[in-house]
């Protein structure tokens, strides 16, 4: 086997002896900022959530749990995101129509107990208020019309389908 240079990095090594090292200053200084659009720890805004449940369906490692307990007038909904199960793929944030889930650029997710890794939020989802039925006086003109428009109203209907 032909060996071109048996000691390849000698000049570089001796030159680097007198240069400044390229090491980052952490942990002696502050941790550096992550790249833009970094997918880090989840922040959940319960005031924006509407409890549609799309994020639960989309999450591949099933890192979320939802508990609902009935209170007066609605349900108390609690979402818990488990950081030790999350893959940080951002599908939940992409699918959320109200932008209630946000992946920040906080990458220091280090802890000793399981509780350090849970992000949860609670909100109360009120039941929708039932509207009163329309009274008989407002409904009077309506029965006169369908007799005249009965046939022309019937023909567009099959085309719409």
């Amino acid at each position, binding site marked *: 086997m032909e060996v071109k240079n048996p000691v390849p*990095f000698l000049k570089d*090594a*001796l030159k680097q002896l007198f240069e400044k*090292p390229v090491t980052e200053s952490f942990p002696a200084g502050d941790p550096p900022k992550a790249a833009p659009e970094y997918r880090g720890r989840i922040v959940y805004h319960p005031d924006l959530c509407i409890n549609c449940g799309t994020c639960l369906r989309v999450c591949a490692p099933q890192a979320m749990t939802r508990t609902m307990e009935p209170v007066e007038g609605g349900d108390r909904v609690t979402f818990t995101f488990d950081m030790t199960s999350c893959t940080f793929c951002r599908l939940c944030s992409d699918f959320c129509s109200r932008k209630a889930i946000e992946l920040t650029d906080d990458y220091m997710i280090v802890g000793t107990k399981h509780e350090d890794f849970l992000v949860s939020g609670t909100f109360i989802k009120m039941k929708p208020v039932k509207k009163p039925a329309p009274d008989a006086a407002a409904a009077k003109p309506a029965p006169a019309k369908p007799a005249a428009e009965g046939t022309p109203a019937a023909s567009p209907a099959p085309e719409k389908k």
Partner: protein
Amino acid sequence: MNIVLIILKWLFHILVFPGFLFTLCAALLLAGIDRKLVARMQNRVGPPLLQPAYDLLKLFGKEIIIPRQANKKAFLSAPAVGLASLLVTSLLLPFSASFVAVSGVADVIVVLYLLTIPAVAIIVGAASSASPFAGVGLSREMVAVMAYELPLTIVLVTVCRKAGLMMDESGMTFSLATVMQYQAEHGAMITKLSMIPAALAMLFIIPCEVGAHPFDIAEAETEICEGTLAEYSGLPLAFYELAHYVKMFILTSLFCVLFLGGFTTGVVVVDLILRLIFCVVVTFLCITVPHAVCARFKVEQVFKFYWTWVLGLALVSLLLVWLGL
């Protein structure tokens, strides 16, 4: 009264200088400087200078686990024997032309076989470990020992003959004190043209004996699960690491005695500092730079390298010296 003074003097030599404490501090200093320089050459910050001391202190506090099938006596006594023989060697090396703790007529032969004992201690410790990784490591260590012993013997014989031609009527000397005296009178050995191949050969022998990077086939970390030290933990491991650092100091000191000795400034402390500076320079040349730059050799490549190139250099010197040059 006289007997008490003599005993105190010997205790001082064995325990403080140049025995236990001084060798320990010099070895830790050399090892720390070596690690820091390797890191700087690789463009990173590197551990603090006292890092080997922290390593050893931490190992003192770890639990000692002995495998069930291991031979307990050999397992625990091998590292201690290796370390003890190195500390005895430090008593034999002269530190300047005027100071040597123990001097005898056949120093060089005693140093030669004292330097084999740490290698045998590693082999015995690995053999008593009852582990296949240690078995692979010990066969590699035997190959390494066979590789470097022959050129080392020839280099020592060459230096002794060169010194003995001038200083002794019989033409041969085996005493390190005579070698230092020769260098004091005729100039350092490395300035003689016929000794330069021998000095180069010695510079190649030092990393293999110490177990430094391109030639550390015995303690190959990633290849064979730490090799000979696979089953060691706690205090015996601390002794092996300490033996590794002390071997670095002893061998570079031997190089300085054989090739760079001879001058003395009269004050022992200044001599010591000069000797330490020379040790650091020799360590940089033959242990640190190859560590930062080279990859590990294969087992047969080490053997071939030592028995062709290094042996050739040593034999060239031997031939030149025997012809009287």
